[in-house]
C-alpha cells in the first residue's frame, strides 16, 4: 500500500502556496516565499543530477555497449568534461569562456533553426498528401492566405475603405482562433493543477 505521507505533504504545500496567492497575509507570504525558493533550488539540483545522468549514465553506457555507435557519445562526454574544466578553471563569468561557449552554441542553434525553416516549408507542401481531409485543406488555404496578407501585398488596396476593413478583419482572425485554443489549454491546465493539488494525480513515486 502506498504511504499517505507524501501526498499529504504535497497537498498541504499546495494549499499554503495557493492560499498565499489569494489571501494577502504576511504570515502566508513569509511561508510561501521560502517554499518557492526551495522549489527553484531543488529544480536546479534536479537539472544538475539529470545532466550528470545524461553524460555518464546514458552516454557512458552507450560507450560500453559494443552494439551502439560510440562517436556521438564520446564527443558529448569529451566536450562536457572540457567545458566543465574550463568553467571551473576560468570561472563562468570569464569573458573569454563565455565568448567561446556562445561562439559555438549560438551559430549551431541558428543554423539548425535555418534548416528547420526549409524542413517545415517542405513538410507544409506535403501536407495535402498526408491530411486528405477538409482540415488539411483549410490549413493549407490559411497558410497561403496569411503569407499573402503578411507579405504586405494588400497594402496597395488599403486606400479603398471597404477592402481595408476586410484585410484588417482577416488579419485579426488568427488571433481569435489562437485565443480559443489558449482558453481550452488554460482550462485543461486548471483541472490538471486541481487534480495534482488534491492528490488524484501523483507525478511522484510515493
Amino acid at each position, binding site marked *: 500500500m502506498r504511504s499517505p505521507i507524501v501526498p499529504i505533504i504535497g497537498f498541504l504545500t499546495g494549499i499554503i502556496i*495557493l492560499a498565499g496567492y*489569494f489571501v494577502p497575509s504576511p504570515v502566508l507570504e513569509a511561508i510561501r516565499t521560502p517554499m518557492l525558493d526551495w*522549489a*527553484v533550488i*531543488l*529544480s*536546479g539540483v*534536479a*537539472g*544538475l*543530477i*539529470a*545532466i550528470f*545522468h*545524461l553524460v555518464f*549514465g*546514458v552516454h557512458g*553506457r552507450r560507450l560500453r555497449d559494443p552494439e551502439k555507435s560510440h562517436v*556521438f557519445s564520446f564527443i558529448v562526454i569529451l566536450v562536457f568534461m572540457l567545458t566543465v574544466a574550463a568553467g571551473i578553471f576560468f570561472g563562468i563569468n570569464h569573458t573569454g569562456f563565455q565568448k567561446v561557449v556562445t561562439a559555438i552554441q549560438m551559430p*549551431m*542553434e541558428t543554423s*539548425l*533553426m535555418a534548416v*528547420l525553416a526549409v*524542413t*517545415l516549408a517542405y*513538410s*507544409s507542401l506535403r*501536407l495535402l498528401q*498526408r*491530411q486528405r481531409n477538409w482540415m488539411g485543406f483549410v*490549413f493549407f488555404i490559411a*497558410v497561403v492566405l496569411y503569407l499573402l496578407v503578411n507579405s504586405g501585398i494588400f497594402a496597395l488596396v488599403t486606400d479603398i475603405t471597404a477592402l481595408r476593413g476586410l484585410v484588417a478583419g482577416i488579419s485579426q482572425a488568427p488571433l481569435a482562433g*489562437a485565443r*480559443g*485554443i*489558449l*482558453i*481550452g*489549454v488554460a*482550462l*485543461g*491546465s*486548471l*483541472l*490538471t*493543477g*486541481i*487534480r*495534482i493539488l*488534491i492528490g*488524484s*494525480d501523483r*507525478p*511522484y*513515486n510515493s
Partner: protein
Amino acid sequence: MNSLEMNIGLILLIIITFTLFFFSIRQRRTGKAPSFRRITAISNFKRSIGMSIEDGTRIHVSLGNASLTQAVSASAFASLKILRKIGELSSNSDNPPVASSGDGALALLSQDTLHDVARETHTLELFQSENGHLAGPTPVTNVVGALQTIADPEVHTNVLIGNYGSEVGFLSTASQDKGALTIAASDSLTAQATFFATVEQTLIGEELFAVPAYLHNEPMQNASLRIQDMLRGLVVLVLLVGVILKLVYAL
C-alpha cells in the same frame, strides 16, 4: 488583479473542486462511465500501443521542455500521466517505453514514473535508469538528443507530448520519415501548428489534457474532462453573449 477578480477566481476554484469530487463520487457509485466524443488520434494511439506490444518494439515518449516551476508545467504533468499509462499498457512487452525530456526535474520524474510502473507490474528486471533521461537542457539540445532515440531501430512509435517550440519539427519530421507512428500534442500554439503541418495524428488544444481520461477511464479523470467540457461551453456562451451585447449597444 484586483480583490474582486481574486475573489471570483477563488470562488470558481472552490466550485470546480467540489464539482470534480461530485462527478467522481457519482461515477464510483453508479459505475457508469460518461461517453466522450471519438478522437481519431487517441484511438490510433491505443491501437499503436497494442501493436507495439505484439511486435516487441519500443515506444518513445518525448515529454517536452516544460520546467516544473513555470506555468507551462501542466502539460508536463499531463504527459507524465500519459507515460505512466503507456508503461502500464506495455508492461507485457520485452521493451519498456523510453522517455526523453528537456528539463532536469521532468527527466527525474519520468524515471521515477517508469520505475514505479515497473515495480507495480513486477517488471523491475526490465527497468533501466536510462529509460527516463534528459535529452538536452535547452530546447534545441533536447531535440538533438531525442533524435538519437527516434533513430533507434527498436523504436517504432513516437509520442511527442508536452511544451515545445517550432524546433519540434525536427522530431516530428524524423519520426514520420522513419515511418514510425507519431502522436503529437502540445500546449504551445507554435508547436501545434508545426505538428499539424508535419504529423498525421495531431491533438489540438485542450485534447492534450483529455488523453489521460481516454486512456485511464478513472472516475477522477472522467470527471475532470467532463468539467473541462462544461467550462468550455460556459466560456463560449459568455463570449457569444458578450458579442451580442456589444452589437446591440453599437446599434
